[in-house]
């Protein structure tokens, strides 16, 4: 009855469309196909139907920030394998593969930048690195982003995209929930604002921790935002799911987010918020 409810990896969740079926540059909504450079020029948004493809962390940072202003922090923080975790493959091997495939060494990037001249701290997750799952390294990086924002007295912009906690780190991955929550509380106590951008998907342990604690929270159109994803809800409860179950649009209607902002407008929206919180 209660198995597999929480923090399942994202392949067991709603969209994104199964990568094995379609080319990643084929729009899952309208079937339009693009070259990489076309999608990159359109901020990875389908120019035909508006579908938001996943956006890599570095591409997003390039889009949000003033040219050349980004300085990465805590780039040396990397995952370890405290449990010698081994399922069908060793965790260590999964990590190496993710590094190779993504050119990142973890599922989050943090650093300083300016946006339209406003100095900010950034924490940006990348779903391609093990489904954006949060292990000790992601928790540590996000926490350091909070500290850096406090130290510099600048707002924190946090972009989330995650299937949840990284179960290969066992209970330590669960502890990243209170860890990141405590970091946000330190931020709050210092009166530093946090603006959260929820990208597809923001789920499970990340939604149940720092992602939900922004002063202002916006989401990308169509993003899945759910603690428990639709497939697990259906398997567990046999409930009939609403069509837009867990999507950003439903979350707006139910009062969980402040706005849905298309990617092309996000930079302006953030700039406006930065002026307000300046």
């Amino acid at each position: 009855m209660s198995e597999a409810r929480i923090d399942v990896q994202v392949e067991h969740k709603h969209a994104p469309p199964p990568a094995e079926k379609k080319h990643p540059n084929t729009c899952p909504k309208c079937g339009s196909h693009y070259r990489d450079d076309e999608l990159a020029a359109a901020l990875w948004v389908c120019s035909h139907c508006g579908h938001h493809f996943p956006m890599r962390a570095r591409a997003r940072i390039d889009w949000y920030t003033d040219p050349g202003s980004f300085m990465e922090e805590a780039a040396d923080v990397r995952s370890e394998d405290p449990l010698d975790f081994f399922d069908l493959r060793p965790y260590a091997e999964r990590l190496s593969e993710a590094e190779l495939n993504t050119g990142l060494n973890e599922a989050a990037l943090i650093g300083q930048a300016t946006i339209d001249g406003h100095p900010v701290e950034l924490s940006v997750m990348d779903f391609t690195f093990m489904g954006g799952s949060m292990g000790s390294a992601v928790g540590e990086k996000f926490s350091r982003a909070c500290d850096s924002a406090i130290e510099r007295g600048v707002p924190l912009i946090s972009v989330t995209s995650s299937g949840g906690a990284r179960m290969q780190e066992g209970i330590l991955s669960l502890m990243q929930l209170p860890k990141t929550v405590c970091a946000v509380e330190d931020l709050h106590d210092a009166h530093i604002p946090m603006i959260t951008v929820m990208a597809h998907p923001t789920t499970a342990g990340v939604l149940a921790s720092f992602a939900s604690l922004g002063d202002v929270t916006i989401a990308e159109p169509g993003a899945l935002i759910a603690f428990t994803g639709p497939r697990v809800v259906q398997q567990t409860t046999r409930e009939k799911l609403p069509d837009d179950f867990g999507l950003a649009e439903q979350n707006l209607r139910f009062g969980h987010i402040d706005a849905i902002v298309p990617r092309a407008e996000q930079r302006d929206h953030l700039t406006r918020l930065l002026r307000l919180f300046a």
Partner: protein
Amino acid sequence: MTEKDQELNLRQRLSGLSRLPLLRGVRVNGESERLERQLERLQADTSDEAIWRSVELARHADRPYTMDYVERFIDDWVELHGDRGRADDGALVTGLGKLDGRTVALIGHQKGRDVKERLDRQFGMAYPEGYHKAMRVMEIAERFGFPVISLIDTPGAYPGVAAEQHGQGGAIARSQAEMARLTVPTVACIIGEGGSGGAVAIAVSDRVLMQEHAIYSVITPEGCAAILWRDAGEAKKAAAAFKPDALHCLELGVIDGIVAEPEGGAQNDHDEAARLLRTALVENLEELEDTPGEELRRRRRAKFRGMGVFA
């Protein structure tokens, strides 16, 4: 492993304890000695078989639940109901009562004993409303300086459509945030299943304890097996891999102490299980009560912010 090997193994683990960042600054004098005695007493077995035995005992149908403990060691119990917004969630019991003479706020999951009660209480899986209720009682505790005791026993937060629509993720996040803000002493004990976000939502405490056969995990063994082994039947393998038992949690610096259970498990003797739990709660409260509230909060946050292993 022979018994001798096991003991050696344990000794090594114990000597490692003092190096964990978690334990520095949080421990008071005498604590590590107590831990050592506990570990000895437990004659702990960290084999895969022992881990699986804990998984089974943690979910044993006769295991004492929150209300079994409340009846046994809380005086003047007054249950407080409702989130002041939408519901009274039976999966999470909250109230005020006296523990060893002091007023405490108590928050605990309640699975329900018979079929009807289990349905009423959703098998101990709380809705967002349950966490809102808990936060309300934490606020009362904060206002009047009552310590907060959490008893954790849940497969996880409820995974339903309404729970999502009512903001399950946000509720769990905010309950943790509320606990991170408290300036009163807080002690949590996992008394059965410590299932993922639904458990940690009320476990951001100055002291987090586990009963000897409780489990604390990011996902159920079955869930982990279904995903990683693509076969829920491999739950035992999954449990052996992610190690949800108390000893491993202690070793990883995730909990602060282990509470002994009666021979064979808490289900065998509720009274004795309650006596042991009560003693542990009172001892931990006593150690916290002289610390100023701001300092408690600072140390609590430092403890959780120190959790994790990375390069």
